[in-house]
């Protein structure tokens, strides 16, 4: 019982951190800060995963998101000066609609989460080494096709993004 409660505390703490950083993302005017806030939000989520004994996923999340969000940061600074929108200018539109939608979505999902009976809880979780092995077997086994598709999609996205982003070649007629 104590273990469970500690775990719950751990999860809740990092959940709150994630949410807090998520809010910060859209509260600050410094692009750098919002990017790193998002990074820490994702990191907190990774920590939640670890708290939920999905160790591999957690570590992976922490690692990937760090790189991803750092890259995002440089893009932010590239595309919009820092502080974003040059000072106090408002960088948002249709604010009320957005807030309402967000709140409604939140409330609705919470309602679903609370009022739905999710069925019996499972017992113990296999230890992380076991998990990793299972996940590997799963990926190389039943879900191989899906995973290969995902990898292929990623490759395609990389190539497409590069193709879109590179400077268009000047065709000189001679």
């Amino acid at each position, binding site marked *: 019982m104590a273990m469970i409660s500690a775990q719950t505390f751990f999860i809740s703490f990092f959940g709150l951190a994630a949410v807090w950083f998520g809010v910060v993302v859209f509260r600050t005017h*410094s692009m*750098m*800060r919002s990017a*790193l806030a998002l*990074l820490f939000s994702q990191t907190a989520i990774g920590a939640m995963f670890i708290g939920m004994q999905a*160790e*591999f996923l957690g*570590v*992976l999340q*922490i*690692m990937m998101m*760090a*790189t991803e969000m*750092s*890259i995002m*940061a*440089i893009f932010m600074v590239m595309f919009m000066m820092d502080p974003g929108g040059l000072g106090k200018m408002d960088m948002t539109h249709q604010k009320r609609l957005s807030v309402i939608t967000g709140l409604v979505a939140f409330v609705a999902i919470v309602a679903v989460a609370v009022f739905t009976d999710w069925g019996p809880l499972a017992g113990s979780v296999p*230890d*992380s*080494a076991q*998990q*990793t092995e299972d996940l590997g077997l799963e990926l190389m086994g039943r879900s191989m096709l899906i995973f290969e598709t995902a990898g292929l999609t990623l490759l395609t996205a990389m190539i497409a993004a590069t193709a879109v982003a590179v400077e268009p070649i000047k065709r000189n007629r001679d």
Partner: protein
Amino acid sequence: MTTALILLLLAVGAYLVAVIEAWTVSGRWQLAAPITAGIALLGRESIVPRKLDRVFFEVAPVLLLISALLAATVLPLTPGLIITDLATGALFINAALVYVLVALLMAGWGPNGAYAMIGGWRFLGQLIAYAMLIVMPVTAVAMRAESLLTTQIVTSQADLWNILYQPLGFVLFFVAAMALAFLPPFDLTTATSELAGGVEAEYSGVRLAVFRLGRLVLVITLAATTVVFYLGGWQGPWLPPWAWSAIKILAVTALMLLAGRVLPRIREADLLNLCWKLGIPLALLNIFVVGLQVLVWP
């Protein structure tokens, strides 16, 4: 208890790294130099630039130190001498070390200084170059060990060290590790000669001391990682495990530092070209070959 011991060892390691670095620069053994320099830094006034981003400025050195320490937590120095033997240790090392990047970005951004910022962004480009070369050789190592447990990786090299089993992987990982520790010739972030210290430029006093300490710990950690992944960790004849670990780690450190001294600094564009056009194909080849070897000699 173990944690304290590890931290102590890391401190000693950092001291030795400083000594060796001084030796590689000046060629003389100045055993007291690190201590005196540290005391001097602590005693000096720590200047704070104007219009800075306080949070980043304060957090960056600490984050650097912490990430290096976190990476060190999953490294076995002797059998049992390990803080947490994570089931995903090899991955966790990468995850922790990525935060070096974050720290450097913060340190580059925070002080609101041109040189620092350039240094920070440069490190980002550098990461894009080396990240893959960290992960993919480690994949090959894990393939041989059939586990991500660092201890198991060490024991998997009982009969043959990975440096002989997959030399290509070792070379790639070594280079990538040097780039990660922004040691010369990859010290684009703190290019003393052109950026006036880069990310370090605006730091002084205690913060600079912490920053330097973090960097030293990072170097020693990377050396230890190399030892664990490729040099069979604590294993070795005649001598006790701790001695072997110490010898190997110090040797790798010296090698890293010396290599930096003899090579010219490399531009990040060239680094990117090198890593993506040569390094990654080689890494893939390495994975392939190791896979074959694993199939042949299980």
